[in-house]
């Protein structure tokens, strides 16, 4: 199997390209996705290759073009609307939550809604409070939606291809900081990655670190720092929030006895809370300390870089939480 290094954006673009070629019903729509190739370069060249009927530029009108896409999906197409800044997915909330997520159920299975909402998340670009948020938890809360949060180019491509073949609505979150900065090996050959299967990004025995999307990278860096102190950390990436691979999380914590959950979304009522509950229930008798949750601070994301980085998790904060969990344990 031959592989090459791709950026996160290139891996996304390749998945879109291959699936556009494979499925004539697939089409992309969104702001600047066409002639401009996407502000994050995820659709570069696709407009030229597949034409304006399959890579459609829309006005700044999330509710409009997402609603149009949901309707198209109900008639048998597979639309891929792109929400350039995931913050503004709020404008299309009714279309996604009340329409797309419900139709298959409310029609007794007669109408399917094969649609892949691509949206960005993540802070760290000094983009201010309205362009830095991570809203994946909202959608994981809604029955009828699948939520994907990849962390590497390999996972992004394999999971996006699965999403684009999925007969149900999928909300696919891409951390915008990773698009150009994160590179990784991607096979030349065709592959897909199933939903609901966590990936153990690093094996370890002393503590379980759960992280998703971009947070996997500072978490792996933290695991490296911990290894220098003789602490063996296991890093688990759930990759999809719904469906969630509870088994892998629980088994890891049964082995290590402790967990720190790292997410860029807010702690309060968030992904860290849900995952902590899953672990506390499934691995109760094996926990040696309370599960630690490290999410974004419960404040609007500041514009000023020093303040912004204070509010989101990083290597140092993860290491501190690990020390807290391991306090009083033998080294």
């Amino acid at each position, binding site marked *: 199997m031959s592989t090459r290094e791709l950026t996160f954006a290139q891996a996304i673009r390749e998945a879109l390209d291959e699936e556009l070629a494979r499925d004539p019903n697939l089409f992309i729509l969104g702001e600047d996705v066409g002639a401009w190739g996407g502000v994050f370069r995820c659709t570069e060249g696709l407009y030229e290759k597949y034409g304006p009927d399959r890579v459609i530029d829309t006005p700044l009108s999330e509710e409009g073009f997402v609603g149009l896409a949901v309707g198209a999906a109900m008639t048998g197409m597979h639309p891929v609307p792109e929400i350039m800044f995931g913050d503004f997915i709020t404008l299309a909330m009714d279309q996604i939550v009340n329409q797309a997520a419900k139709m298959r159920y409310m029609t007794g299975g007669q109408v399917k809604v094969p649609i892949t909402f691509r949206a960005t998340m993540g802070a760290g670009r000094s983009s201010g409070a309205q362009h830095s948020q991570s809203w994946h938890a909202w959608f994981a809360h809604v029955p009828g939606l699948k939520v994907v949060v990849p962390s590497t180019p390999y996972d992004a491509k394999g999971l996006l291809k699965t999403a684009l073949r999925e007969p149900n609505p999928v909300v696919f979150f891409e951390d915008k900081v990773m698009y150009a900065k994160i590179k990784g090996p991607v096979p030349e050959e065709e592959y897909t990655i199933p939903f609901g299967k966590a990936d153990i990004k690093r094996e370890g025995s002393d503590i379980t670190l759960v992280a998703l999307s971009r947070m996997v990278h500072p978490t792996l860096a933290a695991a490296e720092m911990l290894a220098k102190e003789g602490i063996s950390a296991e890093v688990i990436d759930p990759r999809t929030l719904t469906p969630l691979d509870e088994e892998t999380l629980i088994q890891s914590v049964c082995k290590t*006895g402790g967990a720190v959950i790292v997410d860029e979304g807010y702690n309060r009522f968030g992904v860290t809370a849900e995952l902590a509950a899953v672990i506390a229930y499934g691995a*109760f008798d*094996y926990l*040696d*300390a309370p599960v630690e949750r490290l999410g974004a601070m419960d404040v609007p994301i500041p514009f000023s870089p020093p303040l912004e980085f204070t509010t989101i998790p990083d290597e140092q904060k993860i290491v501190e939480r690990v020390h807290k969990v391991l306090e*009083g*344990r*033998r080294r």
Partner: protein
Amino acid sequence: MAVEIVMPRMGLTMEEGTVVAWLKQENQTVAKGEPLLEIETDKSTVEIESPGEGVLSQILVKPGETVPVGAVIGYLTAPGEKPQSSTPEPTQAAAPASNYATDRSVSSAALKSDLSGAPAKVKASPAARRLARQYRVNLAEIVGTGPGGRVVAWNVREFASQAIDAQQAQLVRVSPVAQKVAADLSVDLSQVKGTGPGGWITRTDVERSAREAAVGATAMQPPLIGEKIALTRQQKIMAERMTSSFQGAPHFYLHVEVDARRLAALRDSLLKRAKERFGVHLTYSDFLVKYCALALRQHPKVLQQWAGDGLFQMRNINIGLAMDTPQGLVVPVIHDADQLSLAEISRRRAELSERAQAGKLLPQDLELGVFTITNLGMFGIDYFDAILNPPQAAILAVGRIKERALVEAGQVIAAPMMTLSLSVDHRVLDGATAAKFLGDLVEYLENPDFAQV
């Protein structure tokens, strides 16, 4: 408010105690620290002091009666307070009870509850609580090193291993000077025969032992024709455990030939499908684990363990599998094997085997086994007897499956046969009990369909 007087735990292994005599009568006043009653444990008779000042208002357990540790055996009330009755006490009666605040002396062991009547809650992590249940240690006796003094898992592991060391140390009664001389002369006290009162080891005993060892060493020194090889940790543990088992536990052995026709046919028929469906490679060891687990569930006595002055009844059916690794013999454990399907057992066995081969077994992989299977069939061994894996009371030695002559309905036919040998600790099990267990195991192996019933 009345204070409960409970049967105290006087030692790690004490599970119950007998009231020998009450030294005070009901309604008699007692001072704090005054002898209140005598109890008898499995080791000795002990006088229990009153946990506080007051009136012995009620005696619940009469002399000669035996109750579990922690059971309420009587009540103490404040002077002038009404004795314990079935109607709830008015809350203001609680005030004088503050006289009964306990100190940390032995007598406080008899006081189960604090003044509110609720048992003192020990701060411990769930993992520590689970281990404390498994090791049968009392969390309240353990000093926690976690945040706010929380007892964490390793505190329990440490405590349990120290408790075992202490128990073993107690078995060798030795005078302090003899202990020092033994250390100076590098004499192993467990090998010294004591001639003092009650087998007490004296200085003379140690010196004699050292002399004998020196003489013996000279006399038995073989001509130097080879070199000494240092022991690995695993070899050292194996040597120590096997010596203590073989010398300490009276072994007996039961042998039985098993007609393996149906077992072999079942394995053949499942092999491919199990691979495709569950991704597991079924081995005869997997079937043996499964059927041993089922048979052990029916014969919980086989799970008992000798503890010097009593038997421990183990509950969880955790089956160890002896494995040959580059580092030597290891016995990783498949926990709660009776709760697992054949495919789950096979997967777990494969995981353990892989980790064992890589020298990556975790401490918990090796803990809490209650029964061991050792299989040398793959080495072409027909049958053999195994040494017990202490403190377990039984170990099953499995030979290879081979075509042998079988007499069936008066005809001699060739059939795949397997010979089993069950080694048993005669302190725990007698021949008939062990034979019934082995009989049921053979029943499963010869009629695997029966395991579905």
